[in-house]
């Protein structure tokens, strides 16, 4: 599903975010991406959705080499990937409902589908009664769950979650984890960047640890630290 071949990423200000990343993630896997702040987790996710291009090496998603992808292919490619952004990336001029609906509008889903799917997914993340509210009127944790709702509303093949529990209390966090597990069981590949030691240690899934832009550990059924 995801294949990184000797990938390096240096930003235009010469910050080296990733170096020599070799990684293969299979379809249907659930992978934790851990590592200290600034290790390169978000950069990894940006490379997967082609928000950034690798400076060296190749990123392959499915059979597609992202460096060779044409501009007009990018939107269609991105529609198959759901992303929960670390900074939520909600549209400030749209309500919660409209933000989630937007992921369906871009694929020109029917009005009927929108009216069916959006409330259902808002119910799943526990924000049913916030549908008409604007993002600025939400708490951090609520915004995070809107981002999650938008990411899963059109049932993507791949879900990238950048700190999806960063602003949530333990109970809500576990609720979200149950939801992600459920989605994973239905066949969606999930990569989740996190600092949450509790969750990683309890779940015992594959753990890829980054440090200074390099993979320092890659274990099946791993834990947060050694």
């Amino acid at each position, binding site marked *: 599903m995801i294949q990184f071949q000797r990938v390096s990423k240096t930003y235009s200000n010469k910050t080296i975010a990733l170096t020599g990343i070799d990684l293969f993630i299979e379809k249907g896997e659930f992978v934790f991406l851990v590592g200290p702040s600034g290790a390169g987790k978000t950069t990894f996710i940006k490379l997967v*959705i082609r*928000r950034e291009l690798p400076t060296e090496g190749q990123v392959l998603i499915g059979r597609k080499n992202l460096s060779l992808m044409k501009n*007009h292919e*990018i*939107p*269609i*490619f*991105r*529609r198959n990937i759901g*992303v929960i*952004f670390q900074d939520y*990336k*909600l*549209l*400030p*001029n*749209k309500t919660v409902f409209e933000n989630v609906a*937007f*992921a369906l*509008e*871009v*694929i*020109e889903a*029917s*009005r009927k589908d929108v009216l069916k799917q959006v409330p259902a997914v808002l119910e799943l993340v526990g924000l049913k009664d916030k549908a008409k509210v604007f993002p600025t009127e939400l708490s951090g944790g609520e915004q995070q769950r809107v981002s999650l709702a*938008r990411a899963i509303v059109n049932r993507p093949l791949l879900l990238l979650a950048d700190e999806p529990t960063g602003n949530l209390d333990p109970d809500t966090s576990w609720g979200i984890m149950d939801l992600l597990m459920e989605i994973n069981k239905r066949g969606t590949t999930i990569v989740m960047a996190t600092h949450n030691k509790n969750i990683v240690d309890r779940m015992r899934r594959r753990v890829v640890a980054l440090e200074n832009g390099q993979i320092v550990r890659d274990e099946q059924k791993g834990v947060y630290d050694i």
Partner: protein
Amino acid sequence: MKAKTFLYFTKEASIGLSRNGLMSLAAVTTVAFSLIILGCFFIVITNCIHFAEMAKGVLELKVYLKENVDPAPLQAAISEFKGVEEVRFVSKEEGAEWLEKSLGVKNLFVTADNPLPDTLDIRLDPKVNVKKLVKQLDSLDGIDEVAYGKTFVEAMLIIIQIIGVLGICLITIIGLVVLYIIVNTIRLTVLARWKEIEIMKLVGATDWFIRWPFMLEGIFIGVCGTIISLLLLTKGYHLLYAYIKEAAPFIPVLSEKIVNYRMFWLITMVGVAFGAVGSTWSIKKFLRV
């Protein structure tokens, strides 16, 4: 495009405008203001061109006839020429009378023969091509000389041409300035929203999907600016026209109907097109995500 999708774009555009209310209002005001400036220049320039055209009509040609030529057939022939408004026959006696009157003497040619020729006075149409007409007159039989203040007429014609060219240049320059102002105003409304554009792209929206609502917003801003400026400009010209007709009726100002008609097309096209172009240009940079 599906009708439903277009409906969606229209809805998006109206939401975008209303939720950025103050910004939209500022943009409409600026667009209206710059269109008014464009309109004012247009009014002045078209009137100058009109004035110059009318000045041509004041020009006259004199055709001196050879002796004992029957003026009637010549008069008839010349009346048919293009650019000729009126041909009047002035006999040598009438000429003498006129001369006496203007010199303030009597019996100027009592002792000598009247040396003045019979003359045809030609009043010209403002759209005349003088050179061509003179050539045509020269080729007629029975004509001694075609007299016109050659240097004066030619200078006049050049000035009229220069006014025309200058006017078009000036309107183009003002048009470009207005384009610049409108594009930048709309860019401001978009600039505040570049993050939105990035987010839309990350969620999988195509460029056109993002562009349409922004373009409709730009057009809407253009249309609003157009309506406001046209209302003010036509009202303004109405007052100006009435004032000039009252205070200086000899100045040939263009009728309201003509000015309003031309201005309607100019302002509408500029307002709407620049609005659309402004928004499309403004978001171009942000679409590269």
